[in-house]
Each structure stands twice: as structure tokens, then as C-alpha cells.
């Protein structure tokens, strides 16, 4: 045992000395990507490391479900990573806690100007920029061409016919069920249903997220209507209650015609070799909707505050972050839409398949930015599950949601 301990000590010392004496600045970079996304990020990090010898990025991919608990715990313990991915929706909580380094001095003006202005505003609090936005990733609607064709949604040229409004989408689902016996829709039971689709429908029904004073707000009547809109798909057997991988499998195997998922699913479909049967379109809004919205969060890069901050590491982290944003056409292969104008107009991005089919979603994308969001989010997931499983009514769910929102934001 003792021997083992000393061997370990020796190894640690060696590791340490390598870090201390070699030239490049080492920075640790936490991400939450896996599967297709994870693969692309790995490649990007490798490419960056190979492209120069000043900075070395050590990526650590954490489990999606545990990511924020771990990140916050590391911040509390005083040993956060030098650079970390953070969703735009989580940013207010972290900025408010004083755990994120303001970046005004580290972000070059050229980049500030290259960003879409709405995205840069979303990461600015009290005049300080707190993150490098990397992408925006809205909810989109995937469809299985074979099922649509079988149900007769095909024109004379053999092209599939797609719904233009949410009302049409609902009637498509009904007809698909009648004609083919397959599900019209598949959607996963967690964030996809309770957060992403729910918020999209809520806003397209005219629901707002801010009251007149600018506080976070949920309209009870519209919330109830939103639950009813979702519930009817389940009540009429147009969809079924499934988890994430099953929802995806139902679309790919042709057991369901439509599937709501984030743009990142494109990378997964590509991985599975299923892309020839699958198409993608923006989430349709209601005919009554004035301004169409769709849920869409963003990945951003933040530099966590640490008790001892090393200026060279901050600069190195900022260098890498900037490089990543400028190379986000590669990142876009995962389905994400770029937020730097120069990348959005680049040929590298435009030649990617399918992107033109949903690029409009980027302009419609929104995500709530409110302190205490993780708790509201959890409630959203649970209430929506409760409604579609018949454990609670749309009315009760809407009431409980408003109560929670009031508690969290008070």
C-alpha cells in the first residue's frame, strides 16, 4: 500500500513538473457535450492545440445532467476551470452571484461588432459583457419523409407537403394517425416537452415573460391554454409519453412522423446515417401569432472568477474563446446556428446541408433570462409531465406554475 502511495506521489510530482516547466499556457475548459456535439468540440480543441504552441486547452466534458451543480461547486471550492461553457439562460444566476469575470477588456472590438447585436445584449449586464456567445440552438421540427408520403402529404413532384401553421400541424398529425396508424408526433418527456415546446407555444399564443415593470412573469390564462394545446396531442393518441432516446428512435424508425428536438439532433441523425429520410423545418406558429417565437438557448463561453486569477491564463482563455467563435462554422456542423455575422455569411457555413431550412429560427429564438431559472425550469418540466400523464389539470398546473414563479422571483 505504502509503495502504491509513493508511486502515486511520484506520478503527481512528474505531472506537476511538466505543467510548470513546459512553455505553453495550459487552460482547463469545461464542456457539457457528448455524442455528435462532443465529437465536434473535441476536434475543434485538437485543431486549436495543433494550430499554435502558446496555449494548450485541456477539455473536460462533464455529464449534461450534473454540469451546473459541478460547476457551481467548483466555483465555491475556489478551483473552477479557466474557461467554461454556460447556457445563456443560466448566465443571470451566475453573474448575480458574482462568479463570472467581466470581459469588456478581453473581448476585441472587432468581435464585439461582428456579433449579432441582440445576442451581445443578452450577455451584457450593467454595461459589462460577461460571455463570448458561441451559437444559438433553437427548437426545430423534424419530420420523417416516408411517413408523410405514406399519409399522402406529397405533391405532384414527389416533394413532401409541410404544415404552415400550428393548427395545420395538429390536423396533419390527426390525419397521419388515421391513415397510417403511426404517431403524428414524438417528443421527449423532459426539457423538450416541458420547457422548450411549452415556452414556444406559450409565446406564440401571445404569452409574455415580463410584466410592465420588467420582472419575470407568466400569464396564468395563457399558461392554461398552453397546457391544453399540448394535452390534446396525448389525449387523442397523436403522441405517446416517451424518454429522449425513444422519442428520437420513433422518428427514425418511422413510428412517428414529426419530432420536436433541438438543432443539435442533426449531428446525431447524421451519426446514425438517418439524414436522407429526415427533414427539418422551423416550429410553425399559430395563424393568429403576430411575431413568431421559438425557444432557443445559446452556448456561451465564460471565464469563472477564482480566488487567484492569473492574467496570462485569462488572456489565453480569451484567445481560445475568440478562436472558437471565429471557427463556429465547424461547430455549426452540430446543427447550431452561428452568432457572429462573419461566420453566418461564410461559405463554410452556407454549404452545410439543411441549414437554410431552419436558419430563420435564429431570428425568432428566445430564452428566459431570469434569476432562479433552474428552479422554474424544474417546475415547468414536472408540471407538463403531470398534465400529459393526467396527474393534474391544465388549470391547476397553471396555478402552481404562477405560484412557483412568484416564490422564486420575489
Amino acid at each position, binding site marked *: 500500500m505504502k509503495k502504491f502511495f509513493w508511486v502515486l506521489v511520484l506520478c503527481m510530482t512528474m505531472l506537476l513538473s511538466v505543467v510548470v516547466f513546459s512553455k505553453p499556457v495550459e487552460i482547463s475548459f469545461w464542456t457539457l457535450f457528448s455524442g455528435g456535439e462532443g465529437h465536434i468540440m473535441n476536434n475543434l480543441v485538437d485543431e486549436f492545440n495543433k494550430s499554435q504552441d502558446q496555449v494548450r486547452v485541456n477539455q473536460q466534458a462533464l455529464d449534461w445532467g450534473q454540469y451546473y451543480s459541478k460547476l457551481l461547486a467548483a466555483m465555491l471550492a475556489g478551483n473552477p476551470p479557466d474557461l467554461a461553457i454556460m447556457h445563456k439562460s443560466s448566465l443571470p444566476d451566475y453573474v448575480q452571484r458574482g462568479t463570472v469575470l467581466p470581459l469588456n477588456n478581453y473581448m476585441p472590438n472587432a468581435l464585439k461588432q461582428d456579433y449579432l447585436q441582440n445576442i451581445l445584449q443578452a450577455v451584457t449586464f450593467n454595461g459589462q459583457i460577461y460571455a463570448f456567445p458561441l451559437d444559438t440552438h433553437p427548437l426545430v421540427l423534424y419530420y420523417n419523409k416516408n411517413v408523410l408520403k405514406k399519409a399522402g402529404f406529397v405533391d405532384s413532384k414527389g416533394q413532401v407537403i409541410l404544415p404552415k401553421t400550428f393548427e395545420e400541424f395538429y390536423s396533419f398529425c390527426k390525419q397521419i394517425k388515421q391513415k397510417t396508424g403511426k404517431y403524428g408526433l414524438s417528443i421527449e418527456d423532459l426539457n423538450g416537452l416541458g420547457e422548450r415546446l411549452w415556452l414556444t407555444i406559450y409565446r406564440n399564443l401571445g404569452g409574455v415573460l415580463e410584466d410592465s415593470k420588467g420582472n419575470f412573469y407568466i400569464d396564468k390564462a395563457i399558461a392554461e391554454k398552453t397546457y391544453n394545446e399540448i394535452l390534446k396531442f396525448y389525449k387523442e393518441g397523436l403522441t405517446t409519453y416517451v424518454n429522449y432516446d425513444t422519442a428520437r428512435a420513433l422518428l427514425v424508425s418511422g413510428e412517428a412522423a414529426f419530432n420536436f428536438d433541438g438543432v443539435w439532433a442533426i449531428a446525431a441523425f447524421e451519426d446514425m446515417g438517418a439524414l436522407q429520410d429526415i427533414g427539418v423545418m422551423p416550429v410553425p406558429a399559430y395563424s393568429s401569432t403576430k411575431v413568431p417565437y421559438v425557444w432557443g438557448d445559446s452556448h456561451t463561453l465564460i471565464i469563472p472568477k477564482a480566488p487567484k486569477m492569473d492574467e496570462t491564463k485569462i488572456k489565453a482563455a480569451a484567445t481560445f474563446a475568440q478562436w472558437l467563435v471565429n471557427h463556429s462554422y465547424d461547430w455549426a456542423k452540430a446543427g447550431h446556428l452561428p452568432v457572429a455575422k462573419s461566420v453566418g455569411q461564410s461559405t463554410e457555413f452556407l454549404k452545410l446541408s439543411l441549414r437554410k431550412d431552419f436558419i430563420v429560427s435564429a431570428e425568432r429564438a428566445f430564452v428566459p433570462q431570469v434569476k432562479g431559472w433552474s428552479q422554474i425550469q424544474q417546475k415547468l418540466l*414536472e408540471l407538463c409531465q403531470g398534465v400529459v400523464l393526467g*396527474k393534474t389539470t391544465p388549470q391547476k398546473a397553471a396555478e402552481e406554475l404562477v405560484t412557483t414563479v412568484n416564490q422564486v422571483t420575489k
Partner: protein
Amino acid sequence: MKKRALNGYLFFLPFGLLYAVFLIYPLIQGFRMAFYEWDLFSAPKFIGLQNFSTMFNDPDFWRTLWHTIYFVILTVPFLLILGFLIAVLLNSRIYFGRVFRTLFFFPYVLSITIVCSTWGFLYQPQFGIISKILKAVGINYTGWLLNPSTAMPAIALTTIWWTLGFSVILYLAGLQEISPTIYEAAAIDGANSFQKTFLITVPLLRRTHALVLVLQTIASLQIFGQVYIMTGGGPNGATRVLIQYIYDQGFRYFKMGYAQAMALFFFIIMFAVGIIQFRLMLREGSDKD
């Protein structure tokens, strides 16, 4: 004599020190924290009993408490009955008794992650083997962890499978203490093996029953990992248990005071069960003296 006492305290010191620092101190801190509002980032704010009034008015607190008790109800009786029956079988006149015992006991030493991810795979709705087997015998049910009414029973079944070996071992130890002469006397009186088991063994193992009951209740009240891994508390919060709620409030939403108020409540429950355990233990001690 003085030196003896000094040595006594010196020997106890390493443990005593760690005990004071890592058990007593956090316990006292925990009591204090329950009266504060604190997110770890700003300064703690004394709010008196407000955390407790929030707790008593929080429907999710009561729900998660009920789920915890529900889980105890779903697991403990089976751990008692099945544990007893298997122990009796293993203790009876069979071949390979030791091999069987080993295999029944093995799942108990597996880590919770292995157990839960394997069972999660068995329960998988689309390609899980359980749904497939049920389909083969004409039952078309795939909900399991996705259905609020079966999710908790499914987790309970997994837990029973995992910890049954512990009950079996305790019962086997109890059985081995029963003198064979009692059975021989019963056999002379013409008792069959069924009667022997239920009229002699069951009452004689009174203390073992109490022990299994208390230990497994304590273990079940502490449920967290199974839920965390298998369902994350869903669907619709149907499997969220008290420890997980405390964990979420503390380590996800960083409401340290509130989480600690609930932790105190949990402490009181465990303390009550612990007193029963305490008495069993002291009685055992005096039997031996």
C-alpha cells in the same frame, strides 16, 4: 490509575478529534443554519423560524416525504418476508448450499450505479427485456420508469433485488443460533416442516425480525442514489424523495438554510427509528453480559 485514564483518553483521541470535527461540529452548524437564509455567495441572514414555516407549507416537501415513506412500505415487508423464506430454504437440506448463498449475496456488494443502470436497461420501454418478456406472455406494458404509478414500485423492486442478500445473511445467522434439538422435539410431536417453520422458527427469530425491520427501514429512509440515477425524481416528480429534495435545494438551488431545515426534520425521523435500534442493541448487550 491516573496513567490508565490518561492512556484511555490518548487512545480515544484520534477518533474523538475526527468525531468532533466531522460529526458533532457539522451537526451543531446544521442546527444553526436552519435558522438562516443563505445562498453561500452573500452573507447569511437570520430569519428565525421562517425556513420551518416554508417547509410546513411546501407541498413538495410533504410529497417527497410521502414518497420516502411509500418507498419504505414498498421495500421493507418484502425484504423481511423474502429474506426469511430464502434463508430458510438455504438453511434446509439442499445441495450446494454455500454456492447458492454466495450468489444470492453477491448483488449486495455491487455498487449502486451498476445495479441501477443495469435495471434501467431492463426497464427500457422500447428494447428492454422486461417489456419483451411480458409481451411474450401477452402483457403489453412498457411504462415502468416512465409511468408515475409504476416508477416507484420499479425502483423498489430494484432495491429489493439489490439488498435482499443482507436480510438473508442476517436471517441465516439467526437460524444458525436455533438449537436443532427444538426441531427434533417438534418432529417427535409429529410436526411437519411447514409447521416447524411457521410455528417454531418464525417466533424464535423475533429478535432477527426486529433487527432486519429496523436496519432495512433505516436504509430505505435514506434512499437517494437509486432515484438520482434511474429517474432523476421523475416522471412528474413521482419518485422524488426527501434526501433528493434536500440535495436539490442545497446543491442545485443553493438554498442552504431551507435545505438544512428539512435535513433537521429528516434527522428527527432517523433519530426516532434510531432509538428503537438503540434499545435492540442495548438489550443484546445485556444478554451477553
